[in-house]
């Protein structure tokens, strides 16, 4: 289903939960709504489902305005955060509920339910009740129940929040595969960036009710358009005095400019280890943390603390060691603007030094 949202707003009393959100979703895409808790993601999802009425703005399915359609008539499937399985019904009756509402024949219902039970790997559990299932199984039931009436849009509210960290990864892959197989347009809400990056075709970052950026995970990582997005995706350190860093002197020309530097933008080495010596800064190793597959290194450059990773293959560093620090690029921002800056010295090394 093709979905369009125009200038959506939602107020809860004085609280402006969703501000002027507009976007379009292509048929068949899997979208992740990502952002901090309480940022308005769930409100957007619930308005799409018709469980909440927008304060203003339009929601269009297939180009038709559905604002006034009750949830019963929108043709959507909704997977709730805590699954909201009907406690007094078996797995079978839960999945069959939406079909019974549609007054399908017993035969049809049976066939569809058994197909979904098989698809979701719940065979043999049809006659259990919700309290007799594990968290992962409950999620599968909720998924099968939502899919049973063949909705055109699947909405999932924090689908993995109530599941153990261990099986969460497993379930993510499973859900992505399932949705691809069924080929249904889906939107899921999450506050976990790893989850969004791994599962979604496209991510929408929501903060304080605003849509900050929409794009593929790679796009968002590479080209964050607002400081919030840059800070929210990936790891980073904020540097206030970026103008004093070698290669970023230009930044000092516009006062108040700060930089956001990711660990992977930083390279460190013992003196002489880095070729472009002119672009480096002197630093001191403060702490080392073994992270299983690499070292996490805490550095001090002047008074500024930076974080980077170092391969286990390279020479082992010790706290107190003097190192050269090369900052490849930084995400710069001030009150008016934000842009990505490459290290100027790295691109154009000074000839005098040779």
């Amino acid at each position, binding site marked *: 289903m093709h979905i369009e949202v125009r200038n959506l707003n939602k107020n809860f009393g004085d609280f402006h939960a969703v501000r002027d959100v507009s976007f379009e979703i292509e048929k068949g895409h899997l979208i992740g709504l990502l952002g901090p808790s309480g940022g308005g993601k769930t409100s957007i999802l619930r308005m799409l*489902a*018709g*469980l909440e009425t927008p304060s203003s703005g339009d929601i269009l399915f297939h180009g038709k305005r559905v604002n006034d359609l*009750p*949830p*019963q*008539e*929108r043709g*959507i*499937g*909704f997977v*709730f*955060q*805590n699954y*909201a*399985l*009907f*406690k*007094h019904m078996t797995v079978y009756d839960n999945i069959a*509920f*939406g079909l019974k*509402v*549609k007054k399908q024949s017993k035969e049809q219902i049976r066939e569809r339910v058994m197909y979904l039970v098989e698809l979701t790997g719940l065979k043999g559990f049809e006659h259990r009740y919700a*309290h007799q299932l594990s968290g992962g199984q409950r999620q599968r039931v909720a998924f099968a*129940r*939502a899919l*049973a*009436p063949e909705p055109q849009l699947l909405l999932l509210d924090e689908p993995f929040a109530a599941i153990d960290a261990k099986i969460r990864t497993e379930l993510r892959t499973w859900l992505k595969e399932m949705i691809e197989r069924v080929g249904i347009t889906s939107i899921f809400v999450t506050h976990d960036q790893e989850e969004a990056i791994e599962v979604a075709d496209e991510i929408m970052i929501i903060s304080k009710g605003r849509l900050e950026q929409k794009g593929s995970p790679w796009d968002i990582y590479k080209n964050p358009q607002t400081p919030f997005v840059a800070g929210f995706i990936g790891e980073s350190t904020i540097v206030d005095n970026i103008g004093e860093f070698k290669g970023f002197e230009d930044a000092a020309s516009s006062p108040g400019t700060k930089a956001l530097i990711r660990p992977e933008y930083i390279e460190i080495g013992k003196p002489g280890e880095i070729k472009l010596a002119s672009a480096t800064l002197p630093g001191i190793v403060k702490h080392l943390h073994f992270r299983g597959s690499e070292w996490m290194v805490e550095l001090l450059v002047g008074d500024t603390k930076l974080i980077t990773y170092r391969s286990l293959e390279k020479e082992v560093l010790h706290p107190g060691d003097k190192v050269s620090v090369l900052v490849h690029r930084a995400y710069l921002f001030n009150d008016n603007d934000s842009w990505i800056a490459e290290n100027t010295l790295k691109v154009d090394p000074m000839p005098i030094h040779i």
Partner: protein
Amino acid sequence: MLYFVILIILPIAGIYTQSFSLGWNPFWESISDPLAWKAVLLTIKLAVIATLINMFLGTMIGWVLIRYRFPGRRLLNSLVDLPFALPTAVGGLMILLLLGPNSFVGGLAGGMGIEIVFHEPAIVVAMLFVTFPFVIRAIQPLLEEMDKSEEEAAYTLGATRVKTFFSVIFPTMLPGILSGAMLAFSRGLAEFGAVVLVAGNIPGKTLIASVFIFGEIESNNPQGAAAVSVLLLTLSFLILWTVNLIQARRTGQ
């Protein structure tokens, strides 16, 4: 512990032994006295009617008080407990005054040929009054606990409001309705104070079991009183036991 035994176990054991103290035959005679079993049957019948009305009213009021916000809601919610706080004899008197032949309602009903006070309707009203809070108080926690998303799930699956109520909400309330109704029924069976004032106590017609027992005691026939008591007690115990079972099953889940 001793306190417990003396106060509770001993009296109950006492009444069972007393009713059988003269052997099986006198017990049987007391029970098979038509006035006795008519009183017991009448009590059951009227308690059932009162309970059914209570189930309906209680479900409705419990629902309204939890789900809707409207002026006066908190006041009404506190008033629910009034029958528990009010002496039952006062309750009986209130009903007598309100529905008696000299009152407006009583006069109106009398004009239509329906007599309320000293007849069955008054007994039902009295039972209704004293058992009023049971069903409401039993379903309120269930409704409060209930997850709103279960309801929403039903809506997104296409169920109408009515369908959602009957297939999702009602089954959640059902254990509460049933255990509340059981308690109300057993209280209805046992009620004395409110009923004795309004019932008229005509043997075989409006004489209910607890009043019959009282009459037997007054006319110095403790053995007969004990026999009917045993009958009523056993019934009440069975009900109490069932309620415990229902609750144990719920918490077990």
